[in-house]
């Protein structure tokens, strides 16, 4: 089980890293296609609020899992 937890740790960390360019690329594409106020509001919320939270938490969690920090957490 510990091995699976660690392998998945790598998956979470990579997901966290991968989401940043993916979101920024999509935002640039959509804003360039239609630079409307609603587009700006929407992508600002996603880039400033949602993306950093997802990226930071997945990367940190993934690194902890990869290092085996969650291997023996039987009390949670």
């Amino acid at each position, binding site marked *: 089980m510990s091995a*699976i*937890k660690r392998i*998945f740790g790598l998956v*979470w960390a990579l997901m966290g890293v991968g989401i940043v360019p993916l979101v920024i690329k999509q935002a640039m594409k959509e804003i360039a296609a239609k630079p*409307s*106020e*609603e587009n700006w*509001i*929407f992508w600002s*919320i*996603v880039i400033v*609020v*949602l993306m950093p*939270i997802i990226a930071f*938490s*997945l990367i*940190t*969690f993934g690194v*902890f*899992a990869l290092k085996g*920090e*969650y291997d023996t*957490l*039987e*009390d*949670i």
Partner: protein
Amino acid sequence: MAQNVRNVSPVEEVTSTRRVIAASSVGTLIEWYDFYIFGTLAKIISEQFFPKDNPTAALLATLATFAAGFVIRPFGALFFGRLGDLIGRKYTFLVTLVIMGGSTFAIGLVPGYKTIGFFAPAIVFLLRLLQGLALGGEYGGAATYVAEHSPAGQRGFWTSFIQTTATMGLFLALGVILIVRQTLGVETFGEWGWRIPFILSAFLVAVSVFIRMRMSESPLFVKMKKEGKTSANPLAESFKQKDNLKMVLIALLGATAGQGVVWYTGQFYALSFLQNACNVEFVQSNFIISIALLIGTPFFIIFGSLSDKIGRKYIMMAGMLIAVIAYRPIYTIMYNDANLKNKVEVVEKKDVQIKNAVKGADSLITTITTKTFTDGTTFKETVKAKFPVDPVLKAALTKDKLKPEIKKEVTLPKDLYYKMIGLVLIQVIFVTMVYGPIAAFLVEIFPTRIRYTSMSLPYHIGNGVFGGLVPLISTRLVEATRPGPGLPPADPLAGLWYPILIAAVSFVIGSLYISNKTNNMDVD
């Protein structure tokens, strides 16, 4: 635990715990009520406080304000969580209640955009931020306070009463809005009647503050303070120490993120979907949600109590998994049942009324078309078209400015109405599975000295950010499938991909990394 601190009999302890639950729950319920009337009245608020030239922009602006209310919640969690761990639970969640009530009351008094221009949306925005801040501090305090009064082995049961308050708050908000709207009439409600639910909050909060003033501090906090064991810096202890940060992350990614999107999909998105995608009439759609919420609410207590016996993890993960699998089929049925393309019209019952009125410099033509279908469904379409009387003005206006205002309302027959209640109820059951045990789960993984701070942040990021953004992101996903302006979206269910993806990731993380909580956990 509580029984070690207070020297009371078991009967007295149960009575005392019940009193604690009642006092905490009433206040938390009112805070949720305050928070949700804004979201429920999003459309009217956008008309009142944001420029009306572009209704989509106005609605999105309101949704952004709505999101701001949610996004600010984690900051409230940090600010008030820290206070709660430093000075105590009781006074902190008394302050949050007053801030929430004051802000809600003030929203009801702010003059509209027509009267004070840009100041109107600016003031509403600020008040909405205050609401979010207060809510961020409230829930963690109430859950911690109740849990610290509850005996071990029954924490899931007792804290589940706090868990019912969010749904009951939404139910209360919908109920008050419906009653006021029905009493005053649709037009008056749209003009000024919408302010009443906000103003009413002042009275509810006053009652709740009175009740909470009479409550005593959490026994665990009092004991810890006496022993000088309170944290000097709860923020640093919560998020800078690796051992605690690990717990915060697992609570967020493995539990609250998935729980947040399931919660908002089952209650808010379901209402928005009924009204916007299915065009179900306002009162009927609100009744569908309200009845489903009312029937579903006891399940918070059932699952909370069950989590004391079989563990928190299994129930929460099962709720997330079933939601992920069932959302698309459920919403497909909802959409098809309300879709007029699947129905046969009784042509001889079709009725068209045209009214022409002169309003100021405009000629206003209202066309009301009513159709009846063989299954009993009725459809009413109201088209309001403005034509300037002055030909020069008429020529100067663009096509967009002359665009008619169209309102579509589908009223479902009894059998489909009950079926819709059943379909929403299934989603509410998912909500109760993921949400019922979560307060006990969060309380038990953090120590008393930093519990308020530590549990509030993942809870409010999960619910406020991941969950609170469901309406905004889902609306956007549906809009992306629209082939062109004015055309119907190619996939009206596309909005579900966001909650499905987040709940699926949360399910995998929770299943892998969280062990099943048993009933003998103690909090210290």
